């Protein structure tokens, strides 16, 4: 034996050395080692500091259950991963790992003073202590707690890695590739269906990897699986959770086991698997025992020691004592002995142990102490020996050793079974919950199903001790530093439900989710409460099974692909012109087009003035559009919208106001009748999908007798608004087959013809108050038509304008924007749109609500205009309005500003607001208190420009 490396054995490749660093110190191991096995081989026992008391901690387990040995792996800038479990970190060249939760170093930790005063840090300490004085919270308590809180450090730079994701489908998914899982996969594969077999470890085999006798079988089975076309084997893949109907999400780690130079492509891949049948073969996790000193580095699970020896060729000590309450401890001890590890003694609480085990131990010259319990462990940062006592209370006797193995029985890994809402039943022989019933096509095989013959044992990990429970410093939850006495205290303070005990003590709430602590905690609570565990219940398992990177969960959805950004076909042109953008729903829209050094105000003022004095061109393509077709089209719209539609003649347009059944405005838009049975509707940009869904709903479920159909045409048409007194002159030379004269083509009408040789639906409409047209052309021609209009516009001094100018121009005319001037509680009358409600219509969506008492009551907020006394003061949108600025705080707020701009046309600010009883306040002065001053404004009608509408005709 060199160091702690056994002379032979294990699945490591002793010809291939791997160099790595731990806490900056150069180390080495072999290919096939884990970080834990390589460090143990060098004699490293201390791996980390505990969360609360900063106690020195070593390795407890050899798998994902490991609560103590959490490390941070650094793979370069942005590639720092905290809280990895050392036994699950595959060794590779250049691996850079550091221990966590120590300050400043692992060996000398200043915060370990918490440990000295641990008597003062019982369960609920933080809740009880930092209550008062209140003022100390922000300055004193919180900074201290923040300094101490958390496990590991979050990365602070961008993660440069790629992550992959996919859906996958199979007839059978097997989770866990130990002997039971492999057998299940082979059986399912023989049936010909698609099989996916996943396993979280570096190679498949599970428990068989720690049992050389099974290696020949394992090799044969692996080859068989690899040769089958219908089988996908995914090692290094963790099933994070089981969701409804056998939807299992798993994360495959693709590159973390490779050196940084070898790593290519995506780092992880998220598998979203839908399986006909799911077979859980997740095995079982050994339980620690609860005795004083059970957290000293060198005290670990017997199964872990066996895995380190037989899979990795590492002895966890030179002289080991086994503390067992279960036969498996004896078996592991004998296997270790056979592998060349020195077992000094087996201590077992039980007197009746199978004679074959006792004979085996005797043959190996291992001292056996039956009926004894370990009552203490000597050593601080490493085990020096144990004290054992008959029945835990007899006279203590010491045994020298440098490692203690715990064999507390086994807990089936039922996490995914529980995610699937499978019920559990208490199994006395296992001393654990095992799977019972499920409504999914799901079954457990092997140890996780309770089917594994590994002998008998006691259930309950708390060993008898000379000290009473309330003095016990034995640990239950290693990662969250929960002691047996904390659970006793929780019960004493009145907590009865295991869910409450868990939250009060934090038992099972660490990153390992209590894989080694839940059952021991439950059993202790059961003992204190004098109630059987079945009456106390088990806490709920929730995904993820083990901590999961956000990267894999995001998959491709990051950075540029985070979500679609929709652009119109004219967007590129705007970009080339230096447009500044804003996002509206998923669209990005040109907000304004600055020239030279113009800021937004200057650009918008110029754009507004030019539209009012000459002409402007605006990309309105993002407006929602719906084609409504069928003999009952007019009848349908008549029922949906507030105003009458049946009388609208083909070729004419109408402003449509859409309410919810609750009577509040939810959308609006100008729509055109193209033919008796065909309408072209427009909706707001953000409302397009919602309105279509709502109309489909009525059509399919309320009025399914109507012969009318809806088709989204939002993306069929590019829409170019040409607005301003010279609008007609700009489009005139480009249009064919449409008489543009005011007589032939009046305001609010539509014509079909050609523009620039392309089919167009030409609307004469205005959202600016100026003479205006909206040119609809098939999207692929939008850019060319835009450029032709733009070129023609240059002869007339045209500007391109964006959404900001559009907003100002419409506000000057008092046109509302749904969602800005309305908020889902505004009726047509509130918005001053009572004229758009057909008084004679017997019914339309929302009509009945307009007669509800609250809606006809006086004092509702109504849309009004505001003119500030200081014409240059621009109110803040959203600012609250009061009647009396001198009233005591809190003031009575009577409304808020909905739209506010500087109007270049008027040379002053304008605003719209929702004000209680607003229309009865015309001429009144109201006040808008701001942090630095109070602004006063006069209530006016929301119409600031060309009230008579003479400009519409150019």
């Amino acid at each position, binding site marked *: 034996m060199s160091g702690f490396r056994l002379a032979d054995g294990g699945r490591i490749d002793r010809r291939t050395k791997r160099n790595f660093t731990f806490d900056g110190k150069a180390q080495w191991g072999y290919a096939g080692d884990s970080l834990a096995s390589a460090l143990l081989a060098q004699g490293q026992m201390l791996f980390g500091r505990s969360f609360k008391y900063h106690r020195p901690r070593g390795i407890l387990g050899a798998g994902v259950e490991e609560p103590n040995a959490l490390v941070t792996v650094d793979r370069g800038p942005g590639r720092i991963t905290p809280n990895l479990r050392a036994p699950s970190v595959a060794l590779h060249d250049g691996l850079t790992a550091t221990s966590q939760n120590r300050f400043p170093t692992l060996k000398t930790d200043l915060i370990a003073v918490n440990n000295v005063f641990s008597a003062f840090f019982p369960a609920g300490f933080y809740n009880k202590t930092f209550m008062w004085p209140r003022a100390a919270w922000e300055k004193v308590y919180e900074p201290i707690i923040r300094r101490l809180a958390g496990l590991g450090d979050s990365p602070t730079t961008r993660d440069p890695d790629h992550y992959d994701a996919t859906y996958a489908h199979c007839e059978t998914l097997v989770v866990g590739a130990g002997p039971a899982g492999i057998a299940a996969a082979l059986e399912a594969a023989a049936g010909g269906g698609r099989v996916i077999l996943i396993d979280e470890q570096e190679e498949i085999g599970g428990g068989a990897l720690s049992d050389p006798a099974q290696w020949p079988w394992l090799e044969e089975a692996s080859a068989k699986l690899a040769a089958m076309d219908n089988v996908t084997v995914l090692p290094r893949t963790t099933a994070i959770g089981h969701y409804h109907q056998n939807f299992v999400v798993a994360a495959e780690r693709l590159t973390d086991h490779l050196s940084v130079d070898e790593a290519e492509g995506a780092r992880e891949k998220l598998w979203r698997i839908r399986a006909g049948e799911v077979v859980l073969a997740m095995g079982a996790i050994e339980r620690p025992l609860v005795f004083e000193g059970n957290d000293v580095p060198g005290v670990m699970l017997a199964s872990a020691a066996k895995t380190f020896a037989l899979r990795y060729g590492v002895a966890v000590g030179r002289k080991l004592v086994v503390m067992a309450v279960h036969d498996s401890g004896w078996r592991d001890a004998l296997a270790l002995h056979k592998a060349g590890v020195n077992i000094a003694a087996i201590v077992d609480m039980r007197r009746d142990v199978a004679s074959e085990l006792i004979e085996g131990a005797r043959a190996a010259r291992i001292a056996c102490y039956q009926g004894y319990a370990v009552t203490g462990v000597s050593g601080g940062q490493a085990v020096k020996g144990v004290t054992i006592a008959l029945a835990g209370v007899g006279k203590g006797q010491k045994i020298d050793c440098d490692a203690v193995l715990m064999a507390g029985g086994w807990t089936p890994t039922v996490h995914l079974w529980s995610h699937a809402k499978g019920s559990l039943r208490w199994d006395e022989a296992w001393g654990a919950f095992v799977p019972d019933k499920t409504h999914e096509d799901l079954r457990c095989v092997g140890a996780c199903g309770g089917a594994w013959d590994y002998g008998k044992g006691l259930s309950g990990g708390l060993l008898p001790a000379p000290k009473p429970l309330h003095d016990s410093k034995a640990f239950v939850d290693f990662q969250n530093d929960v002691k047996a006495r904390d659970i006793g205290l929780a019960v004493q303070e009145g907590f009865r439900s295991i869910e409450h005990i868990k939250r009060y003590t934090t038992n099972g709430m660490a990153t390992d989710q209590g894989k080694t602590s839940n059952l021991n905690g439950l059993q202790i609570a059961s003992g204190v409460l004098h109630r059987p565990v079945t009456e106390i219940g088990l806490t709920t398992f929730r995904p993820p099974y083990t901590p999961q990177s956000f990267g894999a969960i995001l998959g491709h959805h990051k950075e540029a692909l985070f979500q679609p*950004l929709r*652009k119109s076909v004219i967007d590129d042109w705007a970009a080339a012109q230096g447009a500044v*953008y804003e996002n509206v729903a998923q669209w*990005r829209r040109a907000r304004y087009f600055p020239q030279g050094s113009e800021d937004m105000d200057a650009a918008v003022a110029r754009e507004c003035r030019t539209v009012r004095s000459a002409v402007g061109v605006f990309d309105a393509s993002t407006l929602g559009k719906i084609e409504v*077709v069928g003999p009952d089209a007019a009848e349908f719209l008549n029922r949906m919208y507030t105003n009458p539609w049946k009388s609208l003649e083909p070729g004419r347009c109408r402003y449509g106001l859409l309410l919810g059944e609750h009577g509040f405005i939810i959308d609006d838009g100008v729509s055109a009748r193209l033919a*008796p049975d065909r309408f072209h509707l427009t909706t707001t940009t953000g409302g397009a999908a919602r309105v279509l869904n709502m109309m489909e709903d009525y059509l399919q479920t309320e009025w399914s007798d109507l012969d009318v159909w809806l088709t989204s045409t939002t993306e069929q048409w590019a829409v170019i608004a040409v607005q301003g007194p010279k609008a007609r002159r700009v489009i005139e030379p480009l249009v064919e087959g449409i008489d543009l004269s005011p007589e032939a083509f009046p305001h609010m009408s539509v014509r079909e013809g050609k523009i620039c040789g392309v089919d167009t639906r030409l609307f004469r409409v205005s959202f600016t108050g100026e003479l205006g047209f909206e040119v609809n052309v098939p999207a692929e021609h939008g850019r060319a038509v835009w450029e032709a209009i733009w070129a023609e516009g240059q002869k007339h001094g045209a500007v391109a304008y964006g959404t900001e100018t559009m907003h100002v121009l419409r506000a000057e005319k008092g046109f509302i924007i749904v969602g800005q001037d309305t908020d889902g509680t505004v009726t047509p009358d509130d918005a001053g749109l009572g004229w758009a409600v057909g008084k004679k219509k017997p019914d339309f969506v929302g009509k009945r609500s307009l007669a509800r008492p609250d809606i006809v009551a006086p004092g509702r907020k109504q849309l009004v205009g505001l003119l500030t006394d200081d014409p240059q003061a621009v109110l803040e949108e959203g600012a609250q309005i009061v009647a009396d600025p001198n009233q005591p705080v809190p003031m009575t707020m009577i409304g808020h500003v909905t739209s506010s701009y500087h109007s270049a046309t008027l040379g002053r600010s304008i605003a719209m607001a929702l004000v209680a009883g607003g229309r009865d306040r015309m001429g009144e002065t109201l006040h808008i208190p701001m942090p630095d001053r109070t602004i006063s404004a006069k209530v006016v009608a929301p119409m600031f420009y060309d009230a008579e509408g003479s400009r519409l005709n150019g």
Partner: protein
Amino acid sequence: MVEIAEIAVSAAELKLGTEPVQGAGVRLSHAGPRSRYSLRARDAKVLAEVVGRTLPGKIGDQAEGVICLGPDEWYAILAEDTVLPRGEGLPVSVTDVSSRALGLVLEGPAALAVLSSGCPLDLANMGVGRATRTVFETVEIVVWREAEDRWHVEVWRSFATWLWNAFLAAMPGAHG
């Protein structure tokens, strides 16, 4: 610290490719211009008569580019410049949506895997010639299995840039 704004803005830089891209076992390209129609009717016979075509009777079936999407809905992907009669006055809806969508084509033995990276359907079990509306992650698409290893994907125009690049991200060997 991570600049969130910077990440969000990068979506604006995505470009819709114009030339085919070859990855390992999969090629992504544009289907090219098509005439597209949304066809609706309660009575398929009336509609079939209006448009002069066979309408597949079962949701998911396709015949000569006409896909049955819903009980009263068909989507026709036809040769460019095909014009269908509107059937004015009849209880049908024939709406030209040629410009609404773009057609992308994934072909090759790895095409299925690329599509499955974001489409939750069991596409391996989708018969050749069948088609359906579904999603690729958050984006609605119409998938048409034109041949064993050839998939025609229809997507609304403004989502095409995202989808093109999402396909690239899932195509081995096609991204850096």
